[in-house]
């Protein structure tokens, strides 16, 4: 039972009445919500407040980072050797493939140049790590440790080694919030690698599933098809894997087929992701690149 203390008298004649304070604060919150969602007037305020939140986020993230560092630096020799051997083997394989790709890319570029079509291929990447901070459990958002100071911008594409991860939804000074492709509010234009069919993949709020709601019953799509990004819209670079079709349900009576896909990128357990700068196919726009030192090849972070 809650203990009675000496100051248990109700508030009488002390400060403004409770109801008035409540009404003021409640109206203030409603005004804030309206200003934030309808008019987007609060970018500046959010910037200040997120500067106050940053130390908290760092403090929460720090123990996990320290633990990772500790386990990393005290890993036993045998395990490191094993990992090293495996990585060397993988690198050799990747290099072999890369040699072929270099020739193909050259050829592709020449062909594109002939058609005067600049390719939407990632030309600068920045490695960012996901902070160990839980945002709303019902939205698929993560916090990255790179922000406006590193040249991150709103709407920037985020990739990982296996495919498209999401896009930046909010930029703060030191951090950036990323909305994953599986968030229920996210949609991405995709194309089947096999048949060339174009459609839209919508997040479901379930971390292992995307849904393709606009596929007609007759369209050429089957389980196992790889969906790649089309580059339409200019947010994502073109030609990166997004998801693999897992289920196509066709009912003769319905107009649209029920199609599910599994994201190729490791959405729930990834630690490092890549922020991507690329030349958009339609309107080329290069953001100010003020951190040349942070440009790294993705192969430097084999995880």
């Amino acid at each position, binding site marked *: *039972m*809650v*203990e*009675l*203390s*000496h*100051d*248990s*008298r*109700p*508030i009488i004649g*002390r*400060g403004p009445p*409770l*109801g008035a*304070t*409540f009404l003021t*604060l*409640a109206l*203030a*919150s*409603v*005004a*804030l*919500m309206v*200003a*934030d*969602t309808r008019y987007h007037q*609060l970018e500046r*305020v*959010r910037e200040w*407040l*997120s500067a*106050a*939140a940053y130390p*908290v*986020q760092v*403090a*929460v993230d720090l123990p*996990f980072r320290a633990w990772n560092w500790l386990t990393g630096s005290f890993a036993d020799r045998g395990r490191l050797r094993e990992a090293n051997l495996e990585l060397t083997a993988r690198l050799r394989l990747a290099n072999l493939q890369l040699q072929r790709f270099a020739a193909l890319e050259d050829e592709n570029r020449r062909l594109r140049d002939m058609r005067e079509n600049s390719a939407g291929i990632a030309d600068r990447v920045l490695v960012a790590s996901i902070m*160990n*901070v*839980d*945002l*709303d*459990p*019902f*939205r698929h*958002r993560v*916090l990255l440790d790179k922000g406006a100071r590193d040249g991150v911008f709103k709407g920037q594409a985020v990739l990982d080694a296996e495919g498209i991860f999401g896009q930046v939804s*909010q930029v703060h000074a030191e951090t950036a*919030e990323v909305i994953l492709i599986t968030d*229920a*509010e996210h949609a991405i234009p995709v194309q089947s690698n096999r048949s060339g069919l174009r459609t839209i993949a919508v997040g479901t*709020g379930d*971390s292992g599933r995307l849904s393709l709601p606009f596929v007609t019953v007759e369209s050429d799509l089957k389980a196992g098809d790889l969906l790649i990004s089309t580059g339409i819209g200019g947010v994502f670079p073109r030609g990166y894997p997004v998801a693999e079709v897992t289920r196509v349900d066709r009912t003769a009576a319905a107009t649209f087929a029920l199609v599910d896909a599994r994201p190729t990128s490791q959405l*729930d357990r990834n630690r490092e992701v890549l922020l991507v700068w690329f030349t958009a196919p339609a309107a080329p726009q290069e953001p100010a690149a003020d951190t040349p030192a942070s440009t790294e090849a993705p192969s430097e972070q084999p995880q």
Partner: protein
Amino acid sequence: MRPTNFTRRLLYWVSVAAGLVLAVVPLPEWLGPARPDLALLAVIYWILTSPRIAGLGYAWLAGLFLDVLRGMTLGQHALGFVLVAFLTHRAQLRMRMFPILHQAGAVMLLLAVYQFVIFWTDGLTGHGYTGWNRWLPVLSGALLWPLIVAAGDTLTRRSR
């Protein structure tokens, strides 16, 4: 008299701030949706024990800070916090007389009001998530209430 009030005020601020930090500490994925709203439970506890110290202003600020921490629409949690704080203030003379289980039931109602505010404003701003596990924090918070009271009472007794 004076220093006691000061330590209580300090305890109030620190405990709510700790609740806010715990609101973003990563949990395993299956446990994440059931995370109790510790900051709000702390606000309720302090309003019940020391209503003259725990006002609405700090509760509102705590809610606003939670909005920023979680990257939600500004004002959502602030509204929830201030509404719950107000209702608790209104009911505190009755609530503090309840036996502990009865009190946990009342707290569950308050948490449900809070969760409903978040749910409703989520829907208005277009982020509606309608799964049943959205209401898990209400249950986990109510189950945790006796522990919160025990911990808080131990703290305040020592500080007196």
